[in-house]
Each structure stands twice: as structure tokens, then as C-alpha cells.
């Protein structure tokens, strides 16, 4: 994958290997591994409760791994929180900002926290986001809260921006502003973004790399373009009506009735056509599968852990 910052060998910004986490008897993360290199936008997809926030809390050093290794900038975020967090911009899903502060106080507070705070940039963002400096945090709307949180995450020009469900509960206009900020962040040389979302069109728009999580496990991970190109939605037509769904090689899910069945498949088209021919069927329609279809098919079928895509 070409990235704008690809002058030298790819530099690993985040690496997680074999991460497992239990809360009492409940398995929240199971043997997770992933790697994010510099300049990438890494999109983490999963339904609510899949373990996305738990994973992010490990990256921030808020949880210590029970099993496995977590490194951010090559450092252990639990042992060196200052060196990690000083270079990370973070927007949490619940935007936990001090409610009693005014916006201008919030900015001064954040400026004191980050040595590399860029006051001029912060002011530019505040104007762009149309945040009233005199307004109190507790009186901000959901959208304004998200923008205030994003401002404090961005204004120290972090090397790594981590966004946990940045669009949750936002209207399309604010969502777009958040996405624009992500795009601008990557456009600035060498910045890396790690963001989680359950909105697949959002992930599809801005990610290079995608990881899909379900019940604490990684069901699929890879380059977004390869994942999209490696999956197809094909409709098969059989000479005779079938009483039950056909077993098609490479199919993740099969739905239909009678003579026509539609499958979301992993594999190249010639291979899928050959597999269909073996069943005596003909491929009558073929389309690229959307990320949403792939996600539903993968999560539904409970596919193997960390399986990579076949190109």
C-alpha cells in the first residue's frame, strides 16, 4: 500500500499481539493481534459490545494486558504513559470533558496538559467548529461536545489520533466535519489514525486497513481494497429448484429459495464460477460485495480468527 509517508521502511506505530482480556469469567478480548504502520488510517469495525473500546483502553494504557503484548510507538503504554499519551490525541465515545469549564478554560487546561499544544491551531479549529469560547461544556450540544473533544485531541498535533466511535449520536453534518478532520490529519505527513466505528460506510470512506471484531475476536483483518476486491455477491441459478441452500465453495452465507440463491463469497470470480459449475449452477448475477455485506457474512458465519483475505 502506498501511503503519503512512504519514503522509508514502514514504521510500526501500534502493535498488538496475542492480547487476551477477561472480565471475571467473561472473555472480552481473545487472542487479538494487529499492526498499524505510520501514515495509515486503521478502521476497527464491530457491533456494540464487540470489544472495540476495551482494545482501545489497552492502547491508552488504561488496561494492562492479562496475556499478550501491546506497544504504541514501540513503548509499553502501561509503563510509560507520559511518553505514549503525550503523542496521542484521543476522543472517547462518552466525550468525558469537565462539565463546569467554559470552552476557553477547557483549551487552557488542555494546553497545560500537552507540551506540544499549538494555540494558534487550537484557535483556528475553535473558529472552524464554531465553538463559543464563553459557553460552558455542560451546555454544549452533542455535536459541539464532539467537536470540543476533537479539538483537544487534535490541537497538540498528535502523531497518533485514536477515535472511539467518533460519530456515535451525531448528525450527518457533524459526522462529516469529524471525517474531514481525520482526512486532514492523515494529509499532514506521517500522522496515523486509529478509529473504531459501527458505521461501515464511514470506515469504507477513510480507512486503509480494516479489522472486524465480533465477541472479542478478530474475524477479518486486512487492506480495505483487498477485502472489497476479494469478496463478491453472486447469484446462482439452478436447473431444478433446491429444497435447501447449496454448499458453495468459498461462500460465507447463502440465501435464497427455489432455483436462485445469492451467496456472499470470498474468492476470485473464475473460481466461484467453477465452484458453481460443479454444482450444476450458473452464475447469473455478480456484484462487488459492500463492506457491510462482508461484515454481516463474516460475523454471521463465525469465520476463523484473524483469517486474511485471499486476493
Amino acid at each position, binding site marked *: *500500500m502506498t501511503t503519503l509517508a512512504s519514503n522509508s521502511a514502514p514504521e510500526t506505530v501500534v502493535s498488538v499481539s496475542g492480547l487476551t482480556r477477561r472480565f471475571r469469567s467473561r472473555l472480552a478480548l481473545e487472542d487479538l493481534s494487529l499492526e498499524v504502520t505510520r501514515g495509515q488510517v486503521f478502521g476497527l469495525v464491530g457491533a456494540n459490545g464487540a470489544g472495540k473500546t476495551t482494545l482501545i483502553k489497552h492502547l491508552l494504557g488504561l488496561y494492562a494486558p492479562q496475556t499478550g503484548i501491546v506497544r504504541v510507538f514501540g513503548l509499553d503504554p502501561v509503563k510509560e504513559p507520559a511518553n505514549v499519551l503525550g503523542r496521542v490525541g484521543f476522543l472517547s465515545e462518552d466525550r468525558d470533558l469537565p462539565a463546569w469549564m467554559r470552552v476557553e478554560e477547557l483549551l487552557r487546561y488542555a494546553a497545560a496538559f500537552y507540551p506540544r499544544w499549538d494555540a494558534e491551531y487550537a484557535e483556528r479549529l475553535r473558529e472552524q467548529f464554531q465553538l463559543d469560547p464563553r459557553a460552558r461544556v455542560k451546555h454544549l450540544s452533542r455535536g459541539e461536545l464532539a467537536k470540543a473533544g476533537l479539538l483537544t485531541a487534535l490541537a497538540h498535533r498528535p502523531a497518533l489520533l485514536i477515535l472511539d466511535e467518533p460519530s456515535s449520536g451525531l448528525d450527518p453534518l457533524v459526522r462529516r466535519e469529524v471525517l474531514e478532520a481525520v482526512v486532514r490529519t492523515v*494529509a499532514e505527513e506521517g500522522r496515523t489514525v486509529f478509529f473504531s466505528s459501527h458505521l461501515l*460506510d464511514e470506515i469504507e*470512506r477513510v480507512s486503509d486497513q480494516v479489522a472486524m471484531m465480533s465477541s472479542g475476536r478478530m474475524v477479518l483483518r486486512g487492506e480495505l*481494497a483487498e477485502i*472489497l*476486491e476479494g469478496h463478491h455477491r453472486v447469484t446462482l441459478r439452478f436447473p431444478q429448484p433446491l429444497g435447501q441452500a447449496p454448499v458453495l465453495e468459498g461462500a460465507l452465507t447463502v440465501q435464497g429459495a427455489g432455483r436462485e440463491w445469492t451467496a456472499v463469497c470470498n474468492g476470485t470470480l473464475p473460481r466461484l464460477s467453477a465452484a458453481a459449475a460443479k454444482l450444476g449452477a450458473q452464475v447469473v448475477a455478480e456484484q462487488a*460485495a*459492500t463492506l457491510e455485506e462482508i461484515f454481516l457474512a463474516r460475523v454471521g458465519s463465525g469465520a476463523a480468527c484473524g483469517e486474511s483475505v485471499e486476493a
Partner: protein
Amino acid sequence: MQLHLAPRDGLPIYRQIVNQVKYLLAAGRLAAGEELPPIRTLAEQLVINPNTVARAYLELERAGLVTKRQGSGTYVSEIRSPLRRTERLRLLADRADALLAESRHLEIEFDEVLELLRERAQAMSPKEPL
């Protein structure tokens, strides 16, 4: 250059950009020597990852459709397609097969398909000023 993305159609965004630029070239809406928008500008305009735009431009460059000039920008190539003629015909033959298969399924006669092609070619050619 105006591109419109459909994030829900399953085609990777870089491929949508490649396809649309090819279409604009074929329709004469992008001429030889014309500059494509800078990567960052297009990324911000479409609200997509700049790496995706870079990838699309790289693909167009590999296909010989655009040329990157050191330190300046990306321009539409003077020589439209360096692919050998047989190669180009082979690419088109695949699409023709798909069209014919589809028309058979839809029970459209071959002559009607030809007529449709002629119509579309006319619609696609640059309009004469009134």
C-alpha cells in the same frame, strides 16, 4: 474534474476514482495535458483518505493515462494509451461478452444492442456548442 463516489456500491473507492477518470477521458471531459487535482485537495473534497487518492493516481499512471511531473502535479498523458491494440481489444472483448450475456438474459435482440451502443456513443461524445 468532478467525481462522485458511491460508498455503498462495493467497489473500492480507489477503483471508483480510476473508473471515473477513465470515463472522463473517454468522454473528452479531461483533455491531454490537463492537470488532475492535487492528492490532498481531492481527498479533502471527497472526504476520503489521501492514501486512496494516491493509489488511484498510481494506478492511472501505471496504465499510462496520466503522468506525474516531478514536484509539480499529475497530468493527463499526451499519448492516450500505451497498451498494445490487441491488448486493448482483449480488454474490451470481456466487456462485450458481459453485455451480450446480459442482453440475452433480458431478451434484447442483438440489433437493438447495436442500436443502443450507437445511441450511447452519441450521448457520450462532446456536445457541439449551440
